[in-house]
């Protein structure tokens, strides 16, 4: 599954960028808002992600939430953990952020729903796309999706979103590895 992620997500990202390029108009980078942002601003949003991740961990522990079955099956099916980590921390964040906070955000923000509608709708749709999780995890994903949308709106760039998503997935991966006792791989 991790190998499939490493193949599929870059290919899907490339396909989306190709569609935007073939359509004409703004370049794919402009369309997706892949513009430079000062590192200090990116780090600020990453810090907010760390706080959100810690809150999620504390709430999960407080309600004695088990590790989702999907996560367990992913780790059990992984042949080589570094490939899984590349998929989780690099391929998935880039693909999902380009699709949701890049492509979809741009289209929805230009519609009558406006930028606020784009923040909410991309968070809801992105969360719904993770249908492999249960309601508790989906709720957390909506909360994180709203923060990602706010970062996209405030910075006018996709780059902080990719950095935040990568850090969020990295935290989740470390937490899952520790909980599953796989730290000594």
């Amino acid at each position, binding site marked *: 599954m991790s190998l499939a992620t490493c193949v599929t997500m870059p290919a899907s990202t490339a396909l989306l960028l190709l569609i935007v390029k073939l359509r004409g108009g703004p370049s794919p980078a402009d369309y997706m808002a892949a513009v430079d942002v000062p590192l200090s601003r990116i780090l600020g949003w990453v810090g907010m992600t760390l706080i959100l991740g810690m809150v999620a961990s504390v709430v999960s522990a407080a309600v004695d939430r088990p590790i989702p079955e999907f996560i367990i099956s992913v780790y059990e099916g992984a042949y080589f953990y570094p490939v899984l980590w590349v998929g989780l921390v690099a391929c998935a964040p880039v693909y999902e952020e380009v699709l949701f906070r890049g492509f*979809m955000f741009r289209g929805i923000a230009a519609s009558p729903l406006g930028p606020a509608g784009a923040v909410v709708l991309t968070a809801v749709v992105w969360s719904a796309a993770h249908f492999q999780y249960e309601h508790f995890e989906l709720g957390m994903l909506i909360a994180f999706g709203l923060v990602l949308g706010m970062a996209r709106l405030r910075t006018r760039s996709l780059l902080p979103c990719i950095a935040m998503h990568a850090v969020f997935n990295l935290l989740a991966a470390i937490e899952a590895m520790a909980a599953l006792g796989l730290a000594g791989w």
Partner: protein
Amino acid sequence: MNPGSTLERPQEVIEAGPAAESSAEKGPLGIGATFAVAVGIWLASFCLDFFVLFVVTVV
């Protein structure tokens, strides 16, 4: 100001001609087309996922 006046357009667009002008003025996709393309990409990634899994596990 008269809409469409050359005063409102970037100089490089005016110099490049009508083709560049229509390309530069092209805005984002509408919300319906945006969702259609996004769902298409998402489904394509699923199909590719299953194909890669098939290749890895069966072939």
